[in-house]
């Protein structure tokens, strides 16, 4: 007779979907909670570096696009927390872990947005890298996560195009605007490469996640895919990728590139990036400032319940 765990393995082997009520190994559940929570946290922390430019966006059209983008990221956070909740945790609990520094978010958001061009660079590179990471997750073995990713990826590709378009406009603008665009690429290139995580040789969670159908490609494969996709776009913009080692290899059809400085990545993950403290402090403050509002909403709802009962 098949046990419930056998049916889990059979579903994984057949490349099917695991749903919330299905049996699953505890490690699978824990890995997913960690990954989905980290992803959700990244969406909401990611609102800050971009939100930083809403008030200063240089045209009303750009302001509207940026507001809609940051709002989309809040929506992505909502879908992802809801996906995590199907695994038996709740959002409040996950937020507490984020605020206590016990769960991570993507290190890319610990870099500062210093000029308007950074909004273009984030859309183009950071949303671009997110798409490369997330498209395979649309086929992730856990149904609610995979479905959330389908929605998210659709919006991320809008964001990527909008970011490219911001830079395209700058690159065809005044010399000052073009310099701003190059400076943004110079600063965001290496952190974007680090978004794919440590090199395969040093990656700790990968193998088991691959076996469970949570991860489909290695960090290095995805990083290569990102470079191959992005370099020709930089050429269209007329911007120089800040890597002297970058060459196109006719034989393989891929770019050869210099690896980012992973020592920097480990420092940022440890909390020593330029904005780690600011990002977390902002999040904690918004949460604490809002505590009386959430309490009031709960108290009001309880009073209505009583009135009905």
């Amino acid at each position, binding site marked *: 007779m098949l046990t419930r765990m056998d049916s889990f393995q059979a579903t994984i082997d057949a490349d099917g979907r695991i749903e919330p009520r299905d049996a699953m190994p505890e490690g699978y559940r824990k890995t997913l909670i960690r990954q989905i929570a980290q992803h959700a946290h990244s969406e909401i922390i990611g609102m*800050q570096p971009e939100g930083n430019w809403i008030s200063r966006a240089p045209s009303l059209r750009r302001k509207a696009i940026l507001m809609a983008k940051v709002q989309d990221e809040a929506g992505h956070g909502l879908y992802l927390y809801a996906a995590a909740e199907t695994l038996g945790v709740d959002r409040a609990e996950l937020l507490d872990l984020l605020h206590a520094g016990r769960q991570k978010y993507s290190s890319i958001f610990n870099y500062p947005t210093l000029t308007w061009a950074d909004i273009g660079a984030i859309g183009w590179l950071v949303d671009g890298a997110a798409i490369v990471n997330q498209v395979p997750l649309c086929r992730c073995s856990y149904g609610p996560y995979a479905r959330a990713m389908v929605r998210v990826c659709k919006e991320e590709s809008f964001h990527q195009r909008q970011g490219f378009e911001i830079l395209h406009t700058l690159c065809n603008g005044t010399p000052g605007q073009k310099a701003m665009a190059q400076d943004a690429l110079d600063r965001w290139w290496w952190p974007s490469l680090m978004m794919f995580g440590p090199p395969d040789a040093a990656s700790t969670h990968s193998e088991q996640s691959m076996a469970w159908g949570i991860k489909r490609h290695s960090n290095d494969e995805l990083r290569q895919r990102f470079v191959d996709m992005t370099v020709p776009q930089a050429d269209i913009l007329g911007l120089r990728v800040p890597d002297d080692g970058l060459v196109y290899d006719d034989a393989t059809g891929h770019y050869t590139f210099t690896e980012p400085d992973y020592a920097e990545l480990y420092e940022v993950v440890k909390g020593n990036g330029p904005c780690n403290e600011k990002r977390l402090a902002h999040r904690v403050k918004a949460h604490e400032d809002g505590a009386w509002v959430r309490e009031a909403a709960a108290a009001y709802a309880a009073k209505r319940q009583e009135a009905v009962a």
Partner: protein
Amino acid sequence: MSDLFDYTVRLGDDALIAAQRTAEWIAAAPQLEEDVALGNIGLDQLGQARSLLQYAGSLDGRTEDDLAYFREEREFRNLQLCELPNGDFAHAMARLLYFATYQHLLYEELRTCADETLAGVAGKAVKEVAYHVDHATQWVLRLGDGTEESHRRMQAALEALWPYTGEMFESDELIGRLAVAVDPAPLRAEWERRVLAVIDESTCSRPEASYQHTGGRSGRHTEHLGYLLAELQHVARSHPGATW
């Protein structure tokens, strides 16, 4: 400059400055659902501002961005209510209740005015601001009748902003001259009826004020507007002639 231009700029500036303040809540709201909701409201306000400023600009050969980014503080014609700093979430909801209820009454009339463009903008906006009124109403009720602390904060916010509501209903010569303009003075009674009904239901007491601030419609603002504009305008002004 024509009366139609001046009138349209008033309404456009209200929406623009309100949007700028609403947007400050994004990534700072009490819960994620509210980041999304305030994002929606801010986008509606910004959309209204753009339509109105585009129209005003078309009357004298300027763009929406010329008007938003390259006018001085004294040339802005928005209500002071819109420019006040955000304060806490109770202040945000009190302001939204007061302002959106006013906009709703105004747009409802404006959508039947003889100017097709203004009527069109108002026809679209009236549906948006109906949602804003509803959102603010729900929160004023929850906060007013929630906890002791939320009640105290809601009461304080309703009172602090009340002296900035009189300005919404001021009639002046421009309104008298321009046939398509909606005279706001007669809207006041219905505005009070609606707003006070929400305040009563929220268990808060009705605010009273012996004095009402004024000046926004003639470009005399609070000290806060200058800083808001400095932030809004600085990138555009640092690169004169650039397109974005």
